[in-house]
């Protein structure tokens, strides 16, 4: 039941906010209340899932393989919780008096619609349903990108639509072939059905799915739509997008991992794509001067770590990928918020025009240092734990080339963070000090930093949870049993006439 509430509440909120159009202040209050409620529900879900319980809801009482079921195992639950937390952070950061009343008023209902689609994607056990949820997320995110309504944001939207629509079409094609092979599109049922399927056709279908998800996750060489779009978003929205949208593709790859391991060729290709993304993404980031564009290319690099780790398809690798996803979402969102503050104070997006006299203040500087060190993987922050996990998993799987690429990328990550530091926090330009800067509230930043520190020092329980999620995912038994016998009721006895 709680699954339905979790799924329906954001949808209802979106409708209410959209139809009633309250004033920005009221709208913000309602949104924050709802987001807190969602976090509470997500925490309850995650505590249930941590015990190994797979909550299932079969819509209309139709059990799979006939109907569509939502199921929350540990993997789904952690992504739901992650999004709920990021939503709350970005709603806190999105203040009508700072980012504009128009932006806030348009964004609130859309953010809940986005949440509706994301929760649906994370919870559904049906791959066709996942396709529908993807489309819902996409159309909402296009509207969110267009909120500023400027020429720049419009130009950023259209290529994104086209690229993602092509990806969705590939997803649908792959699903069609999977249905032809396995007679089902249920994530729990397919691995068993496909084990005996003809290899070539299965490879075609899985390649199509992987191409689609890799586009959503912005993996090299399918990543270029993302750095073209995210810098045009309003900052709190960019923080949310950078945190969760690429993770949607990663989540989908994780969900179909039991299918992918059927084909060693695809898994190996993913390891390569991950390693190359990690290195090329960070090199592209190093060459940028626009702060948010630099951070976008960074996401490409970090998604590379994630995908390499999950494509190792070992319990250690998948556990590292799940932990890394949580860590990277929090850290990247924080860095986007810091970037917003830097841009706002300097009235410039370009690092070369920034002035340290404006940027340096104890809260902002310490926030940047914590987030940047965490992203670079310095102990004792969360990035260290995540990277250590990924490296150890790659070492154990003897993926030497991948490991080399990741270590190289890691060095350049630190270099690119130093680049931001060198320009934004140390540079003294020749021009005189500009007009007094506007500042946004520090609350979301401080909250985000506390979360990062908690994740760093309290990595143990989260990592244990990720490891348990990885084992359950690769084993698949508990998920399959729960989904195919939805609601825990025994199958109805055959009727005797």
């Amino acid at each position: 039941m709680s699954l339905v509430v979790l799924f329906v509440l954001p949808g209802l909120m979106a409708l209410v906010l959209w139809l009633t159009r309250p004033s920005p202040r009221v709208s913000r209050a309602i949104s924050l209340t709802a987001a807190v409620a969602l976090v509470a529900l997500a925490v309850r879900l995650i505590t249930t899932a941590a015990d190994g319980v797979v909550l299932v809801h079969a819509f209309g009482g139709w059990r799979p393989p006939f109907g569509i079921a939502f199921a929350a195992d540990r993997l789904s639950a952690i992504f739901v919780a992650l999004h709920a937390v990021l939503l709350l952070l970005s709603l806190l950061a999105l203040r009508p008096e700072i980012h504009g009343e128009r932006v806030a008023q348009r964004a609130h209902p859309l953010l809940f619609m986005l949440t509706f689609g994301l929760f649906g994607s994370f919870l559904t056990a049906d791959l066709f349903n996942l396709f529908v949820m993807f489309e819902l997320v996409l159309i909402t995110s296009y509207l969110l990108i267009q909120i500023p309504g400027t020429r720049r944001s419009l130009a950023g939207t259209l290529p994104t639509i086209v690229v993602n629509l092509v990806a969705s079409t590939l997803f649908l094609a792959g699903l069609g072939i999977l249905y032809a092979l396995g007679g089902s599109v249920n994530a729990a049922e397919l691995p068993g059905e496909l084990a005996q399927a003809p290899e070539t056709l299965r490879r075609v279908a899985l390649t199509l799915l992987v191409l689609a998800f890799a586009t959503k996750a912005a993996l090299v060489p399918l990543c270029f739509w993302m750095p073209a779009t995210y810098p045009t978003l309003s900052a709190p929205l960019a923080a949310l997008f950078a945190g969760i949208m690429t993770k949607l593709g990663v989540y989908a790859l994780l969900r179909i991992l039991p299918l992918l391991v059927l084909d060693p060729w695809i898994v190996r290709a993913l390891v390569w794509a991950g390693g190359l993304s990690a290195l090329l993404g960070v090199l592209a980031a190093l060459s940028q001067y626009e702060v948010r564009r630099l951070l976008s290319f960074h996401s490409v690099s970090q998604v590379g770590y994630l995908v390499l780790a999950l494509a190792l398809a070992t319990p250690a690798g998948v556990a590292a990928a799940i932990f890394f996803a949580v860590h990277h979402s929090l850290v990247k969102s924080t860095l986007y918020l810091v970037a917003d503050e830097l841009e706002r104070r300097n009235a410039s997006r370009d690092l070369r025009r920034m002035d340290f006299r404006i940027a340096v203040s104890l809260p902002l500087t310490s926030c940047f240092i914590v987030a940047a060190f965490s992203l670079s993987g310095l102990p004792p922050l969360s990035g260290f734990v995540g990277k250590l996990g990924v490296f150890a998993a790659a070492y154990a799987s003897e993926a030497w080339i991948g490991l080399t690429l990741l270590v190289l990328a890691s060095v350049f990550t630190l270099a690119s963070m130093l680049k931001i530091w060198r320009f934004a926090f140390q540079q003294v330009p020749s021009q005189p000090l500009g007009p007094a800067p506007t500042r946004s509230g520090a609350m979301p930043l401080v909250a985000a930093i506390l979360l990062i520190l908690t994740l760093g020092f309290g990595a143990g329980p989260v990592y244990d949870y990720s490891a348990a999620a990885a084992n359950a995912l690769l084993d698949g038994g508990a998920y399959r049993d729960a989904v195919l016998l939805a609601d825990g009721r025994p199958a109805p006895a055959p009727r005797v006439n």
Partner: protein
Amino acid sequence: MLPVVAVAVFLLVTAGVYLLLHRSLLRVALGLTCLSHGVNFLVLSAGRWGSQAPIVTDSVRAGDIADPVPQAFVLTAIVISMAFTLYLLAGMAVQTLRGGIPKLVPAPEDDGALPAEAILAELEGRGEEA
């Protein structure tokens, strides 16, 4: 039936990819439509092509019944792709009305040449609507 569908899928996807590679947004929209219809045929052919509706009565042989699931998939996909096409066309209409030529171009990079006021206005959500 299946060979005919295969040829249709081939033609539609080829035309779709060709059109997608253009810069003009109208061609891109048409290309996406072609591509999605090609894929719809592919999905439709995933199930069994039958001559009878999937309603079991005494007079219908099980072997003649069409598989309803891919049909449901395709129905959903058609609705979604139509919505997206409309959205693309609306975006084009907006661009045309405001004097631009509807083309796919990347968002301009900020090379530091923009005046500070313009950037602040954009960051604070007061940016001029294009």
